[in-house]
């Protein structure tokens, strides 16, 4: 797919890889006692070092049962806290840097030392990635896809935790933004990125679609062409796992080209491939 990517998509892909790189570097640095704030700060420093000057949103870091948003009631609880990381604890790093005018929004799940439960959640996320792509290509309404993801989660025995996000979104649109020398942030969200969302929301309102992929009636429309940062988030009794990456939706008639994941060289996808080849090897042997 990457061979035919336009320059624009290549730009998005580059910043998405950059963001995952930051997350992997910081994840490798986490030690027992590291706090969420320290992790978030480290993410920001990594991104700064790679030339990021603006953010769609500043980095989030969640440790322990905060990965499943346990007891979250008000949005301020999403912000990093002084909770220290302990051995075996799951964590999620979520950052959305803007680089060269391209936005990425990624989520990286891991744990300090082995955590078989979160491993299982990550493995089970694969089905969600496949389901979402399949249904988007079928041009089912976003609301229906949301409900199908919900049903799959219930069947797997998990809870939907992306419902805890603002507006309960499983995905939102990301766009190119103008590079300004000064870009203030409101509650951790960059104004440039927000402006794009608001503009889309106004357009969408007139045309009958929404840049927020939610369980509500505003999302009862087929996928709108553009770039969607998709973030299914599984929760299971105090353990959470998610991935977040860009899904490209076009108005092409060819189903293959009508929707595709921007990049297949991401940590979680590579992990699944490795696991699959391992089981294949076992099966062959």
């Amino acid at each position, binding site marked *: 797919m990457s061979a035919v990517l336009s320059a624009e998509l290549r730009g998005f892909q580059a910043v998405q890889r950059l963001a995952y790189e930051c997350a992997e570097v910081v994840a490798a640095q986490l030690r027992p006692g590291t706090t969420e704030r320290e992790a978030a700060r480290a993410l920001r420093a990594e991104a700064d070092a790679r030339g990021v000057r603006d953010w769609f949103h500043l980095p989030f870091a969640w440790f322990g049962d905060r990965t499943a948003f346990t007891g979250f009631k008000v949005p301020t609880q999403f912000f990093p806290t002084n909770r220290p990381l302990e051995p075996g604890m799951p964590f999620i790093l979520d950052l959305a840097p803007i680089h060269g005018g391209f936005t990425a929004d990624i989520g990286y799940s891991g744990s300090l030392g082995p955590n078989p439960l979160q491993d*299982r959640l990550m493995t089970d996320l694969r089905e969600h990635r496949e389901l979402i792509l399949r249904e988007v290509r079928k041009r089912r309404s976003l609301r229906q896809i949301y409900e199908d993801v919900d049903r799959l989660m219930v*069947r*797997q*025995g998990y*809870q939907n935790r992306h419902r805890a996000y603002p507006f309960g979104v499983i995905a939102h649109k990301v766009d190119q933004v103008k590079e300004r020398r000064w870009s203030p942030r409101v509650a951790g969200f960059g104004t440039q990125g927000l402006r794009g969302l608001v503009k889309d929301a106004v357009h969408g309102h007139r045309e009958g679609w929404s840049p927020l992929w939610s369980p509500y009636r505003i999302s009862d429309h087929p996928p709108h062409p553009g770039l969607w940062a998709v973030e299914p988030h599984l929760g*299971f*009794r105090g353990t959470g796992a998610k991935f977040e990456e860009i899904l490209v939706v076009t108005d092409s008639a060819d189903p293959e080209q009508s929707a595709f994941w921007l990049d297949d060289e991401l940590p979680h996808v590579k992990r699944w491939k490795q696991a699959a080849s391992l089981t294949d090897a076992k099966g062959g042997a």
Partner: protein
Amino acid sequence: MMSEVRERMVRSGEVELCAVEYGDTAHPTVVLVHGYPDSKEVWTPVAERLADRFHVVLYDVRGHGRSSAPAPLRGGFRLERLTDDFLAVANAVSPERPVHLVGHDWGSVQGWEFATVGRTEGRIASFTSISGPSLDHFGHWINQRLKRPTPRRAAQLLGQCAKSWYVYALHTPLLPELAWRGPLGRQWPKLLARAERLVPDSYPTRSLPDDAAHGAWLYRDNVRARLRNPRDDAYAHVPVQLITPLDDPFLSPRLYDDLERWAPDLRRRTLPTKHWVPRTRPDQLAEWIGQFVLAHQHADVGQPLGTAANRPAHRARSGRPPSRSARVQAAYAQRFAGQLVLVTGAGSGIGRATSFAFAEAGARVIAVDRDAQAASRTAELSRLLGAGAAWAETVDVSDEQAMEKLAARTATEHGVVDILVNNAGIGMSGSFLTTSTDDWRKVLDVNLWGVIHGCRAFAQQMVERGQGGHIVNTASAAAYQPSRALPAYSTSKAAVLMLSECLRAELSAHGIGVTAICPGIVNTNITATAHFTGASESEQERLRAKSSRLYRIRNYPPEKVADAVLNGVLRNAAVVPVTPEARGAHLLARLSPKALRAMARIDPPL
């Protein structure tokens, strides 16, 4: 199963102690110490259960059973002397390796002394304490409460003082001896059997009157001295497992509130039973003792079961009081770790969440569902959550023979079920006039007969084992809230509720609790699979979608119902309405049934 029993006499100073050994001496040695008024035979049921894996040693405390008594008696029962006895026995039966110590009642009081004095260091590998506090800790506990008698602390102190009546009685001269050698000694076996709901057997032994008369000196020699001047250095130098019977008439569970201070490596367990645990719950004791011994025998056994039990329930490491949820989780783990739990309808919704909640507490879970895939998924995730073990079974609860086979298979493979959750149920809606007899049969077969089959198959086993248990039946708020939309469903659930209450009355004599859970509107897939009577196929789909949507908007999670189930078992509650609307209706059913009847006439907006 009864293994060879070897008896030997061990000399300790002026007295001869009678010790018996079970099992292979190559296995880890477990020394069981009896209490008052008992002799080593109190441990026989537990020793027999441990003998195949351990080298089990019982001995008569001096002055009891076949051990000789010191002369004079006064001063001969000091804890220092008893420590000599223990060391003599330990050196005789396991000269090379340290022993695992288990004490009940006065055996545990002694055990605390052994586990906290310097001269036993290196001779004890672990200590399991049942119903017997350290006199030193007890002394500090009393002092704390006397110095700062807040209302709560004063109440705790007075409560324990009232429970200790027999201690005062034993301090009177001569009277206890006369009573024990006279009428009390004759009546004791009967009194004990009645109080503890025991089947009368060969225990207590014939030596009881003399044992009890001598044993009075245990109290006279130690209690006043130690409570007045408790040692300040009574720190346990070994890992401790504390097993607390919650209904003990002699000891308040509050006595152990600050125990983490004295025993840094502490695991807590609770049992819903009275004082004589070695007689009433030998299976559970043997399981917990075995686990604890093995965990401290080899360093490489990995995470112990029910890790939530080790979370700081009483004092957080950071010094902050632990959160409510941490306390609750710890209480569940203390009670349910290692217990065998069978949940029907475990493939989804409340059943699945209940399986997970028990798994998290360290229980062994059997997930039963019609849907094999869903059941195995529940079992798999239960294992990941820390269940002692988890298995999936594919059974239709409405099939009597299949349920009986399941019960037989479970008993042979995993043992008797400790907690049975009859949860499987189906939804059915529609007016009475459109409900066909087939519809009736379908809903009653699963919702009522499923519960009956479950209770019949497993309650029998529980009663035969005679070591208690618990049955949870999932009824519904519809059991007491009439509704024109749910005649068949409500009827089935009302029957379940009444069945549970009757069963509770019947089984209480066997120490088996029965709880009916009445959840109310909970966001599960019961609506998506419900049958709407008198509706066409397309209409069915629409009604299912619509009702699912309403339940989703209500959004009461099954996890909270699961929590209510565990809490209900913990409290042995009779009826547990869960959601606010279920509680409201439950209250209204008592205050103003007329209002409830009026509400029943409303047609739900579907």
